[in-house]
C-alpha cells in the first residue's frame, strides 16, 4: 500500500472542520533559514508564549536510525534550541531532514507532511496542538 503526496486542498477537504486538526492545516510562519537549527532558533521565541506546568521538550529527528541528526527545543519562558537528543522528549517529530526543512520554513503545513506519509509523531499530540497555536499567534 503506497501513500501519495496530498495537496493542501485535499488535506483540508478531508479534515473538514475538525478542531484538533485544523490548527495543523496552517504552515508555521514563513522565514529564511538554511538549516533545521536556524529555523528552530527563529521559531523558538514563539514557543516561549506557551504556558506549561512542567518542563517540556519537543525533539525533531531526521530519519529513524540511532545515528541520525536530532535537535530539541526545551520549552519555557525562554525556549532554547539544543543540538542532539533529549533524554525523554514529550513530543518527537520524525521525518527526513528535507521534509523537516519544508515544514519549518513554512513551505508546507505539518498536516500536509503527516497526511502525505512523510512525517511521524510520537508523544503528546496536545503539546503539538498547543505549539502550533503558539506559533500562529
Amino acid at each position, binding site marked *: *500500500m*503506497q501513500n501519495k503526496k*496530498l495537496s493542501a486542498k485535499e488535506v483540508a477537504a478531508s479534515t473538514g472542520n475538525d478542531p484538533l486538526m485544523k490548527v495543523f492545516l496552517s504552515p508555521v510562519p514563513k522565514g529564511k533559514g538554511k538549516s533545521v537549527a536556524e529555523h528552530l532558533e527563529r521559531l523558538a521565541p514563539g514557543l516561549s508564549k506557551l504556558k506549561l506546568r512542567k518542563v517540556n521538550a519537543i525533539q525533531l529527528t531526521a530519519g529513524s536510525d540511532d545515528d541520525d541528526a536530532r535537535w530539541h527545543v526545551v520549552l519555557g519562558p525562554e525556549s532554547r534550541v539544543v543540538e542532539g537528543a533529549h533524554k525523554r522528549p514529550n513530543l518527537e517529530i520524525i*521525518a527526513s531532514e528535507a521534509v523537516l526543512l519544508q515544514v519549518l520554513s513554512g513551505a508546507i503545513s505539518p498536516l500536509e507532511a503527516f497526511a502525505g*506519509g*512523510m512525517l*511521524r509523531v510520537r*508523544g503528546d499530540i496536545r503539546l503539538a496542538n498547543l505549539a502550533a497555536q503558539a506559533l500562529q499567534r
Partner: protein
Amino acid sequence: MAQITGIVNCLLVGDDVAFTTIDDGTGFTETFILFFGNNPSTDPKARRAQDMWVSLLQEAKAHNLTVIVTPISDDSSYVASVQLGRFESSGSEPL
C-alpha cells in the same frame, strides 16, 4: 520497521479520515493514520482492510487488549497492518 506494541489510547474516525494513538506502556504514544481521504488507496481490498483495522482497534480499546501496529515505512505514519494478539505457541512445545 518502526513497529509499536501497546494498547489503544484513542481511535478517531471521521467521514474521510481515521487515526489511532497507541500507548506502548512506557508513557510513549504514537499517532498513526488508518486512512486519510483517498490515501493510501480507494481500492476495495484496501478499504476492506482499513475497515477491519478499525474493528480490531475498537475491540482492543474496549477490552484493553494489546495490539501491534506496523507502519508502511520508518518515515510514515500510515498503517500497513494491525495485529491483535501474538503468534505464540501455548503449551504445545515438545517436552
